[in-house]
C-alpha cells in the first residue's frame, strides 16, 4: 500500500512539458512552453557543484522567514539587467517562471525554469531544454548551532551543449558563480547584514557527454539571437498588416 509520503506536497507533479502562464508585455517569451526539463544527467559539459553560503548574524529572522521573503522577492535579489518573471501564483511546486537574461556581448537570452521542489525552508528550480545549464539550483536557509540563520545557494549543473560549454570555459563559469554570489549578497543586505559570502566550486564530473551534443538544436541563446535579428521584419509586417 502506498501511503502519502510527508514530502508529497513539496514536489512538482505531472509535469511532462513546461506551460508558462501570462507574462508582462515587455518580456521576451521564447523557449519555455513545450520544453522538457533537463537534469545534470542529460547535460553536455562538465558537472559542477557550486555552493554559496552567507550567515545572517544579528538578523532577527528565522529560516522560514528568509525563504518566504526570498520566494516573494526573488527578482529583487538578482544582479541588475536580469529578469525573473515569477508565476502569478508565486514560487510553488510545478509553477514555471520566465527568465530574460543578459549575456556577454549584449546578447539576451529568453528561457525559463520549473519550480521542482518547494517547502518552508528551501526551494529548487530546474532548467529546461535550451537553457545554458542542465540541472537544478536549491535555495535554502537553516539555523546554525549558535542560532544564526545561514542562507545557502547550491547548484548541480552541466552546460547544456557544446556552444554553452565553450562559453563556460571562456569565462561563463566565473560569471555564473559571480551571479549567485551577488544574489546571496543582495539577500543578506535585504536583512541588514553586510555580506561575507563563502563560495565553493567543485567539478563533480570532468567528462563531457558527447552523446548529448545534439542539445545544441534547442539552444535558447541562438534562438533568442535569431528572434532579435528578425525584430525589424516583424515590426514592418505589423505596420503593413
Amino acid at each position, binding site marked *: 500500500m502506498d501511503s502519502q*509520503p*510527508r514530502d*508529497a506536497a513539496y514536489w512538482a507533479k505531472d509535469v511532462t512539458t513546461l506551460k508558462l502562464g501570462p507574462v508582462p508585455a515587455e518580456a521576451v517569451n521564447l523557449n519555455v512552453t513545450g520544453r522538457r526539463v533537463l537534469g545534470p544527467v542529460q547535460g553536455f559539459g562538465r*558537472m559542477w*557543484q557550486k555552493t554559496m553560503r552567507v550567515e545572517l548574524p544579528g538578523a532577527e529572522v528565522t529560516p522560514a522567514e528568509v525563504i518566504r521573503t526570498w520566494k516573494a522577492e526573488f527578482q529583487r535579489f538578482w544582479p541588475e539587467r536580469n529578469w525573473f518573471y515569477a508565476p502569478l501564483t508565486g514560487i510553488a511546486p510545478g509553477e514555471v517562471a520566465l527568465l530574460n537574461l543578459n549575456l556577454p556581448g549584449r546578447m539576451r537570452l529568453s528561457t525559463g525554469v520549473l519550480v521542482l521542489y518547494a517547502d518552508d525552508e*528551501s526551494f*529548487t528550480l530546474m532548467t529546461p531544454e535550451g537553457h545554458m545549464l542542465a540541472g537544478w539550483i536549491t535555495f535554502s536557509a537553516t539555523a546554525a548551532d549558535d542560532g544564526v540563520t545561514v542562507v545557502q545557494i*547550491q547548484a548541480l549543473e552541466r552546460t547544456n551543449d557544446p556552444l554553452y560549454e565553450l562559453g563556460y570555459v571562456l569565462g561563463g563559469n566565473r560569471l555564473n558563480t559571480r551571479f549567485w554570489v551577488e544574489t546571496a549578497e543582495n539577500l543578506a543586505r535585504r536583512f541588514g547584514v553586510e555580506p561575507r559570502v563563502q563560495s565553493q566550486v567543485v567539478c*563533480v564530473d570532468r567528462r563531457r557527454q558527447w552523446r548529448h551534443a545534439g542539445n545544441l538544436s534547442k539552444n535558447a541563446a541562438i534562438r533568442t539571437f535569431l528572434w532579435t535579428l528578425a525584430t525589424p521584419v516583424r515590426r514592418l509586417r505589423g505596420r503593413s498588416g
Partner: protein
Amino acid sequence: MTEGSLITDVRELSSRASVIDLKGDVTASAERTLADAYTRASGRFTRTIVLNFSGLEYMNSGGIGMLVTLLVRANRQRQRLVAYGLNEHYRQIFELTRLDEAIGIYDSEAEAYAEADAP
C-alpha cells in the same frame, strides 16, 4: 528543509552485485552515510549496486542531487546503479528529474538482481 536521518545496510548478492538498503530520509545531510554505504558495497569485482528504497520515508531535492553524485561515482568505477522499492510518488520524482534514464528502476529485488546478474 526537514532533515532527518538515514540508516543503511549493505548486503552482497553475489561477487558482482551488492544491495544498499535505505531506511529513513534521503537528504543532503545523509551524504556521508550513503557514501560510506557505497564504499562498503563496492568490492573489487562489483559491477552493479542495487539501491533498495522500500524504507524511504522522505526525500528532498538535496537527496536527488546526492543520488546524481553517487551515479557519477558509480560511472567512474564502471558500475551500474539500479533501484527497486520506489513507491508511485518517488517513481514520479525519478521520472520528473529524469534520473530514471540513468538509474534503472525495477519492481522487486529479484528483477533488479536479474539485471545485476546479466552479463
